[in-house]
């Protein structure tokens, strides 16, 4: 797939920073929006490639809070400057409070064909604890609206790890599944240092699930979704047939992707690089026609082979031995002889039909302990 490239556009603005969020986003810098979009356009314009753009993904932050015209300009620029495939996947992450009929209509009109709703939960208790600005009713309505506007590729984010009972988990899944959605991403709440949540948990203001409870929830969610026709295609992603996220798959499959905007990461021609984390720096650097790249990394063949193995293993279908050996001119079963023997014996990795993969949810939920032997 050397001819394709996948675009990510980072929109670092939020109404209100979620107390558990450790990503780069700003709630009080809306005054910089127009400068930021100018900078984004500059960065996009100065990128040269003859590869075909497969997907465009607007992520954040909260991309839905900026003016649709700004998004439109970016899409137009991309169409003008690059070859774009006939049916690209163009996704925007949307806060449920923004998912009103009018907004959805206009983003559909500018060519966005996939919507990722940051629903997180259908339970008010959880939404409050998470500090979200929407309630359960808005969660449901946002999906309804998107369907009404005619989106047929809707993804919903769900979060868990807040002491849910099994029936609460079932309620979350059923609440999402009552609608004709095609994709669900489920995330364990992870409490990162330097977030407000970290302090709250430490001070006992919030109770989060214990290791065993989270693991049980993970396995239970997968069971419920699989019973409802979703395929568990990646550690934290579920999709109906043919609705896997093309964009996210590019990360795992090792395709070229280019991230634009503050803190965005790219992987182009075997090189990984990422932009500065500070929005002011980003804008200033672009203005001064300087590079925004803060980290750059060229991997040796061996390292990129190992990295690729670990990334592919996140997918349920795992590593296709023949394809992998051909791509990296290697013998993967020899390179990882001891590791594979060890984990196959323990039942955490399986090898069937020429593929090596994690052996089901029991194994996915401890994947770090397994995959860290392969990097």
């Amino acid at each position, binding site marked *: 797939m050397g001819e394709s490239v996948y675009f990510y556009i980072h929109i670092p603005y939020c109404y209100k920073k979620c107390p558990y969020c450790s990503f780069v986003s700003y709630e009080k810098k809306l005054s910089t929006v127009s400068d930021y979009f100018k900078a984004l356009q500059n960065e996009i314009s100065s990128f040269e490639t003859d590869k075909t753009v497969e997907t465009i993904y607007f992520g954040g932050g909260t991309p839905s809070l900026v003016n649709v015209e700004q998004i439109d300009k970016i899409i137009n620029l991309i169409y003008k400057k690059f070859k774009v495939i006939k049916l690209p996947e163009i996704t925007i992450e949307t806060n449920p409070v923004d998912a009103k009929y009018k907004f959805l209509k206009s983003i559909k009109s500018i060519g966005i064909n996939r919507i990722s709703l940051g629903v997180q939960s259908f339970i008010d208790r959880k939404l409050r604890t998470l500090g979200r600005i929407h309630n359960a009713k808005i969660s449901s309505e946002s999906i309804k609206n998107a369907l009404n506007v005619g989106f047929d590729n809707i993804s919903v984010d769900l979060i868990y790890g807040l002491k849910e009972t099994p029936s609460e988990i079932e309620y979350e899944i059923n609440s999402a599944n009552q609608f004709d959605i095609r994709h669900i991403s489920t995330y364990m709440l992870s409490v990162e240092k330097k977030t407000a949540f970290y302090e709250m948990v430490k001070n006992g203001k919030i109770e989060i699930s214990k290791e065993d409870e989270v*693991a049980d929830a993970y396995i239970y969610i997968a069971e419920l979704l699989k019973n409802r026709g979703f395929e568990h295609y990646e550690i934290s992603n579920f999709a109906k047939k043919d609705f896997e996220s093309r964009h996210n798959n590019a990360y795992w499959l090792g395709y070229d992707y280019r991230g634009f905007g503050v803190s965005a*990461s790219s992987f182009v021609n075997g090189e990984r690089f990422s932009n500065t984390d500070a929005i002011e720096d980003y804008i200033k650097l672009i203005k001064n026609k300087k590079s925004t790249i803060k980290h750059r990394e060229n991997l040796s063949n061996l390292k990129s082979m190992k990295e690729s193995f670990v990334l592919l293993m996140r997918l349920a279908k795992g590593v296709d031995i023949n394809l992998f050996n051909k791509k990296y001119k290697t013998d993967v079963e020899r390179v990882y002889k001891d590791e594979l023997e060890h984990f196959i014996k323990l039942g955490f990795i399986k090898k069937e039909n020429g593929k090596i993969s994690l052996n089901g949810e029991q194994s996915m939920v401890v994947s770090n302990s397994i995959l860290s032997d392969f990097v």
Partner: protein
Amino acid sequence: MDTKHIRNFSIIAHIDHGKSTIADRIIENTGGLSKREMKEQVLDSLDVERKHGITVKAQTVRIEYTHNNEKYYLNMIDTPGHVDFGYEVSRSLSACEGCLLVVDATQGVEAQTIANAYLAIEHNLEIIPVINKIDLPSADIEKTKHEIEDAIGIDTSSALKVSAKQNIGIDTILEAIVKRIPYPKGNDTARLKALVVDSWYDNYRGVVFAVRIFEGSLKRGDKIKIMSNGKVFEVEELGVYTPKQKIIEKLDVGSVGYVIANVKNIKDALIGDTITLENNPSEEAFEGFKKPKPFVYAGIYPTDTDKYEDLKEALGKLQLNDASLTIEPEKSDSLGFGFRCGFLGVLSMNITKERIEDEFNLDVVATSPSVVYRIEKTNSEVIDIYNPSLLPEPQKISGIYEPFVIVEIITPSEFVGNILRLLQDKRGNQKNMTYISQDRVLIKYSIPLSEVITDFYDKLKSLSKGYASFDYNFEGFKKSDLTKLVVMINSKEVDSFSMIVPKEKAYRMARDVLKTLKKYIPKQLFEVRLQAKINGKIIAKEQIGALRKDVLAKCYGGDITRKRKLLEKQKKGKKRMKQIGSVAVSKEAFIKLIEANNS
């Protein structure tokens, strides 16, 4: 110089009573070094100490001192200051005619003061009591004098009162050395008889050794013979430290200096050995020479099993400078190939381990230290074992003997109760208890060495709020009621966790050991069962549940680098673990086990 103008002395003191400050003042006041040089000298030696740990012991220093218009050479022979080095102290003292017994006037007599003073008495030395730190407000000179008289039994009417820090009374010390310490006897023309008082390995010159000439004299080019093994070497260089190194042509009878003679192995110039001339040898060697004998043994293994050869090389290099370090290759079922090493004491063990890690950059695991056990078998064969896992089957044993030591503890009387309880718990037998002053007590116990080598000192310090001091001496092997405690991980015996324990404590120790292991074995992908048994009977159990969750859910905007780095970090963490079968054990487990053992 004739022997009438030579004095040989040591300074003995409890740790921190001011021995090195007094030594520095003596050098400074006699002009051996200027103030500026003094500072450099001190810094230098600190650097060396830091770099070489305990093996570089302060050298012998020759001081020039003029008294009543006559020039004297005062040879100061330093003694190591840790309880593990009793033998070295005794050799240093036997090279002297007298010593300064330094006692801190704010602390009084401590355990090491007594142990060292007894050694000095044994060697018939003239003892000059020196009461130091008299400038401090809490100094109690009279009480200190009483303690010296009561605990050691020497007259203190002519004790010197000094403050090394304030440079008060240093001149009285120098004068007393000349007036009170006898000059060395000996005949310059007799057959050479010199005592090795110290030796160390120099990377450029090979082994350097300090000697005291008792009979005859030694000059450059002489062929010397090491009396313990008959080996012959040619003297390349002779000299003294003033403390600057000064090369001289000849060492006369009664004097002290260093010798370089192309000796490559430190075992050819052991402390306490006798040196004579090849062509005109002395008839007999000095009494009391002992090859250094390790008291404490532990297995040292590379964490990464591929590093065995590197570890071997590192230990070999350390052995150059540490005559007491013994190394035997051994294989453990759980840890692979490594070495059973013998050390003078736990201090030497820890220093050796640190040096391997710091100087040779090798990650190692040390098993719980153990003593030598003497096993009497039913077929009346007697064997010594250095590794608890090698204890024969119980039905083949008719008796197990373990080394005992005599510990001497001095403590303020209010802590006596605590300390006696500790000593009882450590299977001690009281030998003696006396008040050395109104509120300070000298306690003598016979206790198994195995009880001393772990946390005894720490416990003693905490039970006495830091006031108790202690010293110990080897007593001999005694029969004890011991058994082997075997630890199993997932039903497999782990030989490196085996330990020999007193039967009366076996249950408690088994529980402690498993609790410790549980704490330091991270959750694995499968359940881990820990068991402890004695004589085939399980006496304690613990269980470590399987790891349930370890996953990176979100990968935002393709930040693969961060993800990979997290996994790489995790991998690195795993590498620092020791793999025992399929179970990864944190290296801390081995260290903490040492603490749990004997607690």
